[in-house]
């Protein structure tokens, strides 16, 4: 039996400044994972933090994007290309990828929530194109410069409808202004055929979920990724558990029906 708490040491091949105070590490590591899973990233001497996998299975590099929010993430910003970090994982249940045929898929991302949704979006876009009925991305950030993966979003082309919004627009901004849930007003939804994947700050998810429920989308088709303080990643240390579920193991991806015996205020 291996000690599954020891990280694998990997090198950072490339660092890309995705946005002010947001970096992406490119790591050359073959890892079997599905979109929505996360890694526990170690900075030896400081500790470990859970960070979603932003790359899509099959891409050349394993990618993680993280924001400077204090604690470990501050230290990650001190690292240079060639330095080592530890990774453990992949952990979590990942997004459910079955039964997407003929469905209208809508991705709703807020801030750093775009990172795991990038993995999912690319996966569905690349692998399942043709069977899907429609793809829509609603994505919001604080300011235009905080939008992640700008180039890639531009290159997505017409097969996916992309609506961007910011809280604080600047000169030259051509997208929408306002919070992400408001973008739902700008699109037509077919509630009984839609599957929604949501990831972002809890307050944004709470309002988005509430709005989607009002449109009539079944609660089992509203899927989101919960953020919790996760340490071990394998459902042992106890920090992430909510009701009787371990977010790191039974989640972080849940559909609203699974947690419906808890009130939205309890979950989000």
């Amino acid at each position, binding site marked *: *039996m*291996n*000690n*599954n*708490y*020891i*990280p694998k*040491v990997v*090198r950072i091949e490339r660092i890309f400044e995705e946005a002010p105070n947001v970096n992406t590490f490119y790591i050359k590591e073959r890892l079997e994972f599905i979109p929505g899973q996360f890694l526990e990233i*170690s900075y*030896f*001497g*400081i*500790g*470990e*933090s859970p960070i979603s996998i932003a790359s899509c299975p099959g891409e050349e590099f394993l990618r993680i994007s993280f924001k400077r*929010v*204090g*604690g470990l*993430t501050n230290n990650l910003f001190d690292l240079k290309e*060639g*330095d*080592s970090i*530890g990774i453990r994982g992949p952990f979590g249940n990942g997004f459910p990828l079955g039964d997407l045929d003929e469905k209208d898929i809508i991705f709703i991302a807020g801030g750093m929530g775009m990172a795991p949704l990038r993995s999912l979006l690319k996966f569905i876009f690349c692998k399942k194109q043709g069977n899907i009925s429609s793809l829509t991305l609603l994505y919001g950030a604080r300011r235009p410069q905080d939008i992640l993966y700008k180039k890639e979003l531009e290159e997505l082309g017409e097969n996916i409808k992309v609506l961007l919004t910011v809280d604080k627009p600047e000169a030259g901004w051509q997208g929408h202004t306002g919070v992400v849930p408001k973008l739902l007003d700008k699109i037509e939804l077919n509630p009984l055929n839609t599957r929604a994947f949501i990831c972002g700050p*809890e307050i944004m998810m709470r309002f988005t979920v509430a709005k989607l429920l009002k449109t009539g989308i079944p609660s089992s088709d509203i899927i989101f990724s919960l*953020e*919790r*303080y996760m*340490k*071990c990643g*394998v*459902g*042992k*240390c*106890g*920090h*992430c*558990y*909510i*009701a*009787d579920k371990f977010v790191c193991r039974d989640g972080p991806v849940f559909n609203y029906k699974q947690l419906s015996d808890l009130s939205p205020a309890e979950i989000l």
Partner: protein
Amino acid sequence: MISGEHMIDGYYNLKKEDLKNLLKAVIKDFRLISPQPANGADFLFQETEDSGKINLNYDITSNTLKEFFFPARETVFEYEKRKDGSVETVPGADTFKGETVFLGPRSCDIRAVYFQDCFFGKEPKDSLYWRKRDKSILISFACNKPPRKGCFCVYTNNSGPVLEKGEGFDLQFIDLAGFYLVEVGTGKGKNFIKKYGKLFKQSDEKILAKKSCIKESCLKHFEKEYNIMDIYEKLKDINLEKLWEELGKRCTNCGGCEFICPTCFCFYTQDIEHSKGKGERIRAWDSCIFSGYSRMAGGVNPHEKNSDRISRRFFCKLYNCYKWFGVFGCTGCGRCSFVCPVNLDMESFIASLMKTDRYQPLLKEL
């Protein structure tokens, strides 16, 4: 039942006067951990080389078996950063030396180990726990009468006074006056009997019948007022906001109940750098009662209110644990009642929950 051991049916008798010889032999062949007197009237499970120090008539120990398999602090790995940017890691050494016999824990403590076996045994298995647990033999001692006022195993789904096979013991000793009835629980237990074959005599039906008498007579000492399954149901349905508020005002977040509890499993990890570039990652006991336990970077805390954390604690022990494994997270040992500096213990909580919905401490342990 998770241990891959094959269940063996077997009952033996051990004469009381042979216990001394058994202990001496065990000390020679194994590491022996058993209850011994400590400060004043305290007892602790401790390693011993002197069988004379062992006291099996203890009321309760101030520590539990948890700290041997899941220590309060242990090294997960050591690391060293190299000049070329790489990092070398070495798994934490196994400090559990050799085959260890635990002789003297009671049913409540053994059932607690069984719970932790279920928890740390769920995939992926926790290797730090199992490399110690696999090297242990558990010899449980059933209770003929409650050892003290504060026990309540009868409320917690028969976690005492006598256990059944498959509930965690390798051997169970039942005191029948002049001798012990020894029940074999696992293959490990069977091998132990074989090893000390001279001391153990095969038992018979008549003696086996006494096992249930012991159980009955012990139960008579308890006023069995509630069944934990009723508590399970009550927690599901009723709105207990007022009770949680009250408890939230009382609890001062010392973490004691969860540090002393033999089933609690929460831990935190911490990197400690001892010298430049060299250090270790440790894991240490944590408690869900602290606000920092679930607080995330940036200050967001899904359990900001003390009353939320208290309710989470009781839900975990009396509801979730049973939902996960069919074993309750509380085995009625009653230790939380002597560590709580605000008189908020499990037995008082259960009594308050079932009787009044307002909290009334029983004040059994002062």
